[in-house]
């Protein structure tokens, strides 16, 4: 249990809290992306490289892309006129 391992686990909790506490939806999505990447690194620490590759490609890549397209569809990305969805 090295220092960096403990620090990564702490960052996971911080990211999870930040997802719910940030005001902007786009910010919370980017934080969630960072959460997935940290998870991938932790799986390398746990000696599961299969999971690390899958999480990095699927969790941080595809899922986030789907979330971003959804945000664009509901006009929540900054610069859009519709303020309703940003709450």
């Amino acid at each position, binding site marked *: 249990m090295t220092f960096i391992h403990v620090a990564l686990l702490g960052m996971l909790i911080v990211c999870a809290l930040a997802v719910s506490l940030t005001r902007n939806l786009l910010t919370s999505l980017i934080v969630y992306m960072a959460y997935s990447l940290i998870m991938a690194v932790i799986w390398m620490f746990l000696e599961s490289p*299969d999971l690390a590759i*899958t999480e990095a*490609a699927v969790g941080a*890549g595809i899922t986030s892309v*789907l979330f971003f*397209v959804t945000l664009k*569809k509901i006009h929540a*990305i900054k610069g859009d006129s519709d303020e309703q969805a940003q709450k």
Partner: protein
Amino acid sequence: MSKRRSDWESRPQARFRKWYKEGFLALDNEIIDHLTRTTELPENIEDRLIAQQEEMTSRQHERTLALERLDQYNMLAWARTRGRKAISRLYVILALALGAMMIFFLLETVALMPRFGDPATPGANIVSERYITKGLEETGATNIVAGMILDYRAFDTLGESTVLFIAASAVLILLRIDRNKDGSPVQELIAAESDDRHYEPRNDRILQGSAMILTPIIFLYGIYIILNGHLSPGGGFSGGAIISAGLILYLDAFGFDKAGRFFTYKTFTWVSFFSLSFYALAKAYSFYCGANNLPSGIPLGTPGAILSGGLIMPLNIAVGMVVACTMYIFYALFRKGGL
């Protein structure tokens, strides 16, 4: 706090409350008007006085009734505004308490779990021992996890690919926008297309140039991961996701017209159908004659070579194709409602 308040005021209940208040103010005025209305001096004053007295009492009665009703309105208004707020606050507190309690009891359980990294955990039992010691010999795959999910537990993975296919079908049902029968686009599709290209430049030089360089590399990497699934970390799922990322990049850079040249609904249908049915048939054959270490006639090859592991590599390719098509069609449907 003020933002919270403005949020609150723009909500329907608040608007309802305002409307309601104005309504009962008008009622109040009406009552006061009613009570203070002067009557002309009568001729036969005694009769009139008696009548007036009766009228007064009846008005008194009316007034008390009205006040009672007002109280009821106030109660209702309270229930609709402050009460709702109080209940929502109570809900927040109770939800937080529930979450904290859940964490606390689960932590108590975690403290009783076997130690992290202990070789004698109950999880490392005879099953995993068998997978590790006999896995290479029986499946021919160097990557024990790949051998496990595509040989010992291949039925599970078939179900998983089917889940992906069903998810793609569900999203297709939810988001697809059809054209008219004569092929002309419907109003919704035109709106979706204009919305789609609203904030994006057409034919961006930098994006197209980098996509030209990156897409082949991403494809190559995905194919490498799929083909080496039985030798090194990776496999159908991660490789398929990487290939779909390359497809998405291509679509973003060059638009739907160019991507539609090689990927249509027909491609999706046929690729999914052939991959899933190939998977099912291959595993059916394997179950029919190869289960329990009976000879199946499929050579396992030398461990570590690219052509080894029996059926694992073709199955990885099938799974990868299903995953890539599914992820790509998710993206296309989310963006425009079609391919």
